[in-house]
């Protein structure tokens, strides 16, 4: 893929839509999974995935060939999801650490509009306990966990995607996993 990818990126830099279509084919599934697990619903995931690719296209000149493409793309996606969540809710709510009295209220706040039939389908999928626990994680832990487990990126690639040192990525991974352990154990017992 690397050779082909380089060829495609060169074409995209010249404004070639067809070449960009091939890049979409290759990465849309992964970027969508990432956005869906970060945001927890299809509507927002689609919105942000689309915006990620449009942003990638318009800023392709800033992509340097010595870098890896996937972390560059996931960086755009992660920044957009964070902006999106900030717009929806003030940051202090989203970055709050998990405490005992912190159950599903946070989720309820995010989906504060009344449920539509479409939402009901989404809620059904949200019932997945792991996803719920993920959405309760502070963003910085959630993005590391999702990139590692859902996208299967290496720690190095995650560090590039989030613009963090590898050591910090490891710490976030541990803290995130620890928080999930606490919340999932609670659900199993209750």
């Amino acid at each position, binding site marked *: 893929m690397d050779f082909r990818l380089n060829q495609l990126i060169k074409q995209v*830099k*010249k*404004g*070639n*839509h067809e070449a*960009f*279509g091939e890049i*979409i*084919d290759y990465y*849309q*599934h992964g970027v*969508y*999974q990432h956005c*869906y*697990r970060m945001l927890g619903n*299809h509507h927002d995931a*689609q919105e942000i*995935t*689309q915006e990620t*690719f*449009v942003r990638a*296209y*318009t800023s392709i*000149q800033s992509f340097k060939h010595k870098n890896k493409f996937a972390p560059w793309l996931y960086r755009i996606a992660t920044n957009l999801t964070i902006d999106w969540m900030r717009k929806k809710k003030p940051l202090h709510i989203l970055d709050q650490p998990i405490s005992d009295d912190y159950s599903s209220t946070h989720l309820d706040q995010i989906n504060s509009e009344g449920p539509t039939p479409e939402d009901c389908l989404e809620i059904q*999928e949200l019932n997945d306990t*792991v*996803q719920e626990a993920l959405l309760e994680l502070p963003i910085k832990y959630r993005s590391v*966990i999702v990139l590692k*487990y*859902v996208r299967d990126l290496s720690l190095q690639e995650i560090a590039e995607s989030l613009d963090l040192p590898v050591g910090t990525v*490891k710490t976030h*991974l*541990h803290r995130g*996993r*620890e928080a*999930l*352990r606490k919340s*999932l*154990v609670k659900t199993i017992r209750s």
Partner: protein
Amino acid sequence: MACNQIFEEELHRLLNSELTHDEENCLKHHLMECKECQTHYQELKKVDHQLLEIEDVQIPNDLKQNILNQLPKDSKTKKFSKSVKEHPLISAAVVFFIMLFASTLSSFHSNQQMSLSKHEDVITEGDRVIIPKSAIIEGDFIVRNAEVVLEGKVKGNLTLVNSQIVDSHNHHDMQVASWSHHVDGKVVEIDQYFAWMYHKVEHEFKNFLSFVTP
């Protein structure tokens, strides 16, 4: 402090397979004796497992099309060297005309100097050509062997021979999409001798046509 809190970091590193052989042996010995740490580790493994089990969701069918619809329009730029490759007939014609216009070859090679169409508002600085905001060029404009800062307007076609459009601020290649605001006609980039020939031939051929068809 609870025992499993002291060992927490190491338990995660065990899960990541990051411990050295000795560290691992040491921790495993402890796990055999300590119920607390054992439970903690089992729970972490369960979380790890559940995260790995997360299934991919289906992506919407219209995702790709929506993205393509939102992209800025394809630029007017067309690489002539590409169209020569794609159309054999043109290639044949070019080969034929090479005989006729062999002189352009020498003119191409002998002329590595910067040159451009004459226009009073255009400024030259070293190997840069600046078309300032105030400038409006009514007809076609040709630039050779230069960097072009395009802030004004070209009403005809802009032909770049061994030249490129740069941003006035950071000197990088300007994004293709933003050229079109400045050029009403086509932007033609010529960076190879062969394409240059083709361009010359096309030009001469048009002259020829206008000569025979009054």
